[in-house]
């Protein structure tokens, strides 16, 4: 697997230089590995800070900007950031109204953000955390680390970001973030594994006749392997898994997310099928995203995230946003 990089060791820093060069609306600190709004913190506004391993671009740096995140801290590829980054980002983004950490539920992210939050608190910074854990492929039981956070992260960051922009207090922003997470479910399917630059070869092997169902976003194998099928059947498997966990109904926001190596034409094919399966179950797709939003390096495949909307959530979803990866209304 060839990679368009200068070397496995510098990929995160090199990409940060590219992000800095491409987006004048961002202030990138490659040294400390944080991405901030160029406009600086807005006094009185709750600051949203997120982060996680790299390799999921545009998550999270691509969601920094008006109406969404105030700062992102990218770790090494697939490795959660260290507490220093989170503290640095929180301090730099803080506008005097507290900081919301949006944390995807992985042991590493949880521990590093927790440590950072404790140290922030010691410094007198008010921090709340919301845990994103939307992946129905993982059984949510005492026998696991709990569900993974995947696609719903985009919804949480967008919707909570919109509320923060209105000047809402930290508790309110955290409340809506948790509500989005509670109303969202995801499921992913891989047609091929991804290759981490440092590993140099795919994390698992899949034949031409197989797919992995219930994959995460770190190249880990899924819950089960199954025969390769058409887009309609694979989309059906994803919708069914989501529906079994949280029956789909009413107005929904849907993301058909590419894992990084699947071309847009195929994502549209899959989205048509997802929309069809949802309609069959009586849900109405009223808002949607189709594209690469929470990727897993060069993995081929897709994930589906369904969020059950309320009037408030729809309104906040529609509010203006201006980030590299999501932009409307300004």
């Amino acid at each position, binding site marked *: 697997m060839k990679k368009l990089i200068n070397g496995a060791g510098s990929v995160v820093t090199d990409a940060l230089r590219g992000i800095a060069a491409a987006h004048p609306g961002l202030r990138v600190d490659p040294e400390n590995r944080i991405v901030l709004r160029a406009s600086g913190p807005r006094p009185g506004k709750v600051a949203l800070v997120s982060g996680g391993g790299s390799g999921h671009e545009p998550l999270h740096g691509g969601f920094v900007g008006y109406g969404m995140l105030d700062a992102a801290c990218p770790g090494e590829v697939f490795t959660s950031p260290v507490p*220093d980054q989170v503290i640095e980002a929180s301090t730099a983004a803080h506008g005097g109204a507290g900081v919301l950490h949006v944390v995807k539920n992985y042991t*590493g992210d949880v521990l590093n953000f927790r*440590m950072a939050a404790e140290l922030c608190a010691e410094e007198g910074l008010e921090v709340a955390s919301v845990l994103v854990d939307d992946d129905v492929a993982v059984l949510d039981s005492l026998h*696991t680390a709990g569900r993974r956070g995947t696609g719903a992260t985009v919804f949480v960051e967008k919707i909570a970001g919109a509320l923060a922009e209105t000047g809402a207090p930290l508790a309110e922003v955290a409340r809506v973030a948790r509500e989005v997470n509670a109303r969202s479910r995801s499921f992913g399917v891989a047609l091929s594994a991804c290759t981490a630059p440092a590993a140099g070869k795919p994390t698992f092997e899949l034949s031409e006749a197989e797919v992995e169902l219930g994959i995460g976003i770190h190249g*880990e194998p899924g819950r089960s392997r199954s025969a390769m099928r058409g887009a309609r059947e694979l989309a059906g498997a994803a919708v069914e898994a989501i529906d079994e966990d949280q029956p789909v109904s009413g107005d929904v926001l849907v993301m058909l997310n590419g894992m990084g190596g699947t071309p847009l034409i195929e994502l549209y094919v899959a989205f048509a099928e997802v929309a069809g399966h949802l309609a069959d179950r009586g849900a109405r797709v009223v808002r949607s995203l189709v594209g690469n939003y929470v990727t897993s390096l060069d993995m081929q495949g897709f994930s589906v995230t369904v969020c059950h909307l309320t009037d408030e959530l729809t309104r906040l979803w529609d509010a203006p946003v201006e980030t590299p990866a999501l932009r409307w209304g300004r």
Partner: protein
Amino acid sequence: MDADFFVAWIEEAARSVRDRKDELTRLDAAIGDADHGSNLDRGFTEAVKALGDRRPGTPGAVLALVGNTLIRKVGGASGPLYGTAFREAGKALGEAPEVSAGDLAGALAAGVDAVRRLGSAAEGDKTMVDALAPAAEALAEAVRAAPESPGAAVAEGRGPAGALEAAAAAALKGAQATIPMQARKGRASYLGPRSVGHQDPGAASAALIVRALCTVAAR
């Protein structure tokens, strides 16, 4: 055992992790995300550098610096877990310039407890705890069996080096015992039954780190 001994331990651990980096990554690729080797290599390399720069004067200060460095440089699950383990172990050693095998056993136990608490992991969950806990117990046991009389104990193979050999063997056995387990913590837990049949990468690295302690003591 003085500060130099502990610095030598970390240097040896760093060497060993570097040597086995690809293997650790391979283990992590099977049931995780293929970064454990690079994570620990980065962390221990930085720890060795920090020790060289700051040269702390007591065993406790050495371990505290190692722990802080791991937390500041590794990320992932293993960064905070190993970092906290070293910090707590360092705290347990206090400010003494020299420590005994018994002190070390207490420190290791404190480190393991910290991992257990932070990760809410018990033995059998298929994590580094499955290598660290038996190592700590074996060390405590060996020390209890051969109370502090350096000369004699070392001759019988039950002094620091002998006790540490027992700990290293227990860690390795514990790591290998993770193979048939189904993971209940960390990334591997997402795989459910598919996590069975693979060694936990964190348990494997823990065995390397304990083994390094023994290697240095045997010099």
